[in-house]
């Protein structure tokens, strides 16, 4: 009998971490393990409520558990925020094309993330750290609206930051609007690209965040000399099947679910309404 492509793997919720007033990270344990590559996504089923696609934010090297960092914006994400330890959810996947790490070898990798867009970049960052000797350097630019909206604060400001002494790695951190507790930069995330000391010719930029942030970051990257094919974007669309059947996620003629979700800018720049 043919394997049913809609069968979700049963997962038990291990933990629910509050990252910000609107963002939580749900840690789940898939019944028989789960493998994915950074940038690929999975469909998370909340039984009886609905299903939505998310790129896991946990390390692709961890086959035992998966983490999804989710902003509360609608019906399904609302139900995700209400999950409790011990609840059962479903996961299908992995789907889509991952970040092409082979192409990143020997290069300086610029990661630019904003808000909940840091989630896929966290999985990518954790994968890069595992194979750090393959890359020349990692520059991680992180942004959020306010200090309270910052996710993974303990990692970005502390745990990962400490790795900078050991590895060729640096962070450029900003918030759109700071408060008295904030001792890092202020301004939108594109500001962190000013005065960037990077060998652009031998670099790739990976961008993930809200559409408006991706748009202006892409424009800025082009302005400072990145070529269209050096800019990797994580795209998002309404999605149901995740396997190229339901046609909801098409951007023009390309499927976010199977041609993406990771695209280089030149692959999609001529498609309609890419920044929504």
């Amino acid at each position: 009998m043919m394997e049913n492509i809609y069968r979700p793997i049963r997962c038990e919720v291990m933990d629910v971490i509050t990252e910000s007033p609107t963002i939580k990270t749900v840690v789940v344990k898939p019944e028989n393990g789960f493998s994915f590559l950074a940038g690929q996504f999975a469909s998370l089923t909340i039984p009886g409520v609905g299903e939505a696609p998310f790129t896991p934010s946990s390390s692709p090297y961890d086959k035992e558990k998966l983490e999804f960092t989710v902003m509360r914006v609608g019906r399904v994400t609302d139900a995700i925020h209400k999950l409790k330890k011990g609840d059962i959810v479903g996961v299908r996947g992995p789907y889509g094309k991952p970040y092409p790490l082979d192409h990143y070898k020997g290069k300086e990798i610029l990661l630019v993330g904003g808000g909940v867009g840091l989630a896929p970049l966290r999985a990518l960052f954790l994968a890069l750290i595992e194979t750090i000797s393959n890359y020349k350097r990692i520059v991680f630019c992180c942004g959020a609206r306010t200090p309270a909206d910052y996710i993974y604060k303990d990692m970005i400001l502390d745990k990962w930051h400490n790795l900078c002494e050991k590895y060729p790695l640096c962070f450029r951190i900003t918030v759109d609007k700071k408060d008295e507790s904030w001792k890092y930069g202020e301004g939108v995330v594109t500001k962190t690209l000013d005065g960037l000391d990077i060998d652009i010719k031998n670099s790739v930029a990976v961008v993930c965040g809200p559409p408006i942030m991706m748009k202006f970051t892409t424009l800025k990257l082009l302005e400072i000399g990145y070529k269209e094919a050096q800019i990797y974007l994580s795209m998002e669309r309404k999605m149901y099947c995740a396997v190229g059947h339901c046609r909801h996620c098409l951007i023009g003629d390309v499927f976010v679910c199977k041609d993406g979700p990771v695209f280089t800018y030149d692959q999609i720049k001529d498609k309609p309404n890419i920044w929504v």
Partner: protein
Amino acid sequence: MDTLYITKKDWDSFIKGKAEICNIFAPFEYERRLFYNRASPDIEKDIVYNRVRTVEPLKIFFAPFKERVFPEVDEIPEIVIMGVTTCDINGLKIMDRVFMGDDYKDPNYTNRREKTLIISSDCLSPYPTCFCELVGIHPYPYDGFDLNISIFEDGVLVDIGSDKGRSFIGEDQKFLQASREQINKREQNRNKISAMIKESNRAFDFVDITTKLKGAYHTELWKLPKDIENCVQCGSCTNNCPSCVCFLIEDTGSQETMKKVKVWDSCLFPGYARMAAGVSPRPTLYDRYANRLLCKYWYLVENYGKTGCTGCGRCIDGCAGKIDKRKILTEVLREKTAIR
């Protein structure tokens, strides 16, 4: 292709015999239109052959409006569908590529395809809204069927399209080899119908439609044909289309028994592409209308190497806003070429 001949009388009794042992669905007339119905032996004589397409698209047999996909439907019966026209055969070719074309095979669709025998037939009385010839499809099929039948004077020509079709006929001695003369005569009939459809569509220009539509995203361009504003976004065109496959998935069930149900969706609906936070990449009616036609004539060609539109005309017949898509496309192509 092997073509056989059988008298109409013998064909009728052959089908009557088959109707005793098989689930046969065939076109029947109801208020001057054709609808699929179960062809039980007592109503076999009322089957309408070789007239025109049915009101319902063929996809209702393979991807019903609403069905459970997880767990998959466990009992799918073997059926025979008769009277399928070329427009629907071509719709099925798109659906095959979508649902069975790669590593991900839709469970119910694949099972149904395996358990269905398709008997197509020539179209002899096309509607004024039929335009298969505009999209390069003829009103008679060359492939994509198990058997094809053409009513021929007092007999029936039967083309064998597959081994499954051949074994449906079996060793029945009443089927004879068709003569060259009979086949030639059928060809002449077929050409007449083709010419008729071309003639009734001479006001419309679909030449190089895929190439010409490339890049035609701009909302303003689609505001030019005035009729689009009559679209009430009811989804009739997508529901009636033999190659519109879009669906959404509902999660029912519980933590103990998860269930997923597939339901047809329509890209004309404002909520179709709207994302969780409320933004939509196709916010206006014009964006959505453009998307449907761009998908049909361009995106599907890129995705599956084949135009989605099969010229069946159901989207025109069923349109609540009385929009004739042929007119819209002719205008858009003319405007786009002028802009260039």
